[in-house]
């Protein structure tokens, strides 16, 4: 759950945003910045207060509710930024290894980006549904406790 999220963020940040300045004018950039920032502020506040066992219910509620909007917004932002990098990636063939070489290995960064985008198709629904299940488990319980 955490690994795909961290991996996708690192992919979008360094090989895409940092490498291709052309992506900075994409609509995706403000989208993902807002989504990531809001999520992280809430998430880390939650973790910190959790250590002290002082998490106010409103924070738990926000953590398990805002994702409903922030996840799709963030994913849209990420995909738009990567898409904006396609033309430059195809043209410059940066980060790629070509034939021939001693280890008969090749890596085409442009195709790696395409596969990365395609992976969102199975991964996003899985992670999104997982968050809903967590939400049901965590928020469902506190409601019962109140009753």
């Amino acid at each position: 759950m955490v690994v795909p999220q961290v991996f996708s963020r690192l992919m979008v940040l360094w090989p895409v945003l940092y490498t291709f300045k052309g992506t900075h004018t994409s609509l995706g950039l403000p989208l993902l910045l807002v989504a990531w920032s809001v999520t992280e502020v809430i998430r880390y506040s939650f973790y910190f207060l959790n250590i002290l066992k002082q998490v106010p219910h409103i924070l738990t509620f926000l953590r398990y509710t805002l994702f409903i909007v922030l996840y799709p917004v963030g994913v849209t932002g990420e995909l738009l930024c990567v898409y904006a990098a396609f033309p430059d990636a195809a043209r410059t063939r940066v980060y790629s290894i070509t034939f021939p070489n001693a280890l008969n290995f090749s890596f085409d960064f442009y195709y790696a980006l395409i596969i990365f985008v395609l992976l969102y198709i199975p991964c996003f629904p899985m992670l999104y549904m997982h968050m809903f299940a967590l939400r049901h488990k965590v928020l469902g319980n506190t409601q019962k406790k109140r009753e």
Partner: protein
Amino acid sequence: PGTHWREVMEIEKLDIYNAKSGKFVTSLYGLKSTSTILDVKKSVQQQKTVLHPGRQEVRLEQKGKSLQDSDVLQKLGIRSDSKLYVKDLGPQIGWKTVFFAEYAGPMLLYLWIYQRPWLFYGDKGHSSPISLCTHIAAGCWTFHYAKRLLETQFVHRFSHGTMPLFNLFKNCTYYWGFTAYVAYHVNHPLFTPPSNLQLYAALAAFLLCEFGNFSIHMALRNLRPPGSKERKIPYPDSNPMTQLFNAVSCPNYTYEFGSWVAFTVMTQCLPAGMFALAGFYQMAVWALGKHRSYKKDFKNYPQRKAILPFLL
């Protein structure tokens, strides 16, 4: 058959619980002491039509072992008002279908890419002759998967008739994906073969390991006569390749890993190495589980490692 001559008793009510949630599902009526677990499964299906027997796993305890279809209720100590747990194994698919998809697929896909189709290589596909190494690699790949298909048909004995449908997609993605990845590189017009010495030495190692793997499959087949449920510790037989049983619990996986290492050295191809490592990781997980299970079942289990002699 096999039960005492006595009155067949009615089992008026049998309570079925969901193995995953522990919750009560339904009660079954009209079973007998001579009924089998398969009868129980059929009865469950009458109430929950989507659960055909192949999709059910019946247990005495919520997290207990699976019972066999042929087990008789009386022998299991089940009477009226007894509890049984049922697990839904999800949509199932026949294993023969799976193996065709998992083994025939990679074999044919590799042979297609071996032709250097335009889809993968564009116009430059035929810009250079195919090296001897590439020919031999195609032969080895085909041999490996053809052997697997034949073993599936004639050698292996399967404990379950079906497997979960999701596994089909997961396994096929793995097999087909890696096949395309390895095949693309080995059959590339700019592929650089290693020296002939390396090629032939690795080919010999590959064939030896394939034979070793086959020897272990035969030994395992002979370990349990058909129909018996007896579990036995595997030991070397007259085939010298089976001596590896003295060092590891799962020498079939050891030999398989050996084959793929040999294939990697034969082609000096990093993607092939990645495929070997991925396969090794999965087989190590299986071997460690099997090894643990042997040690649990047999107090006198000999000193062995799971998959790598002396190491793992």
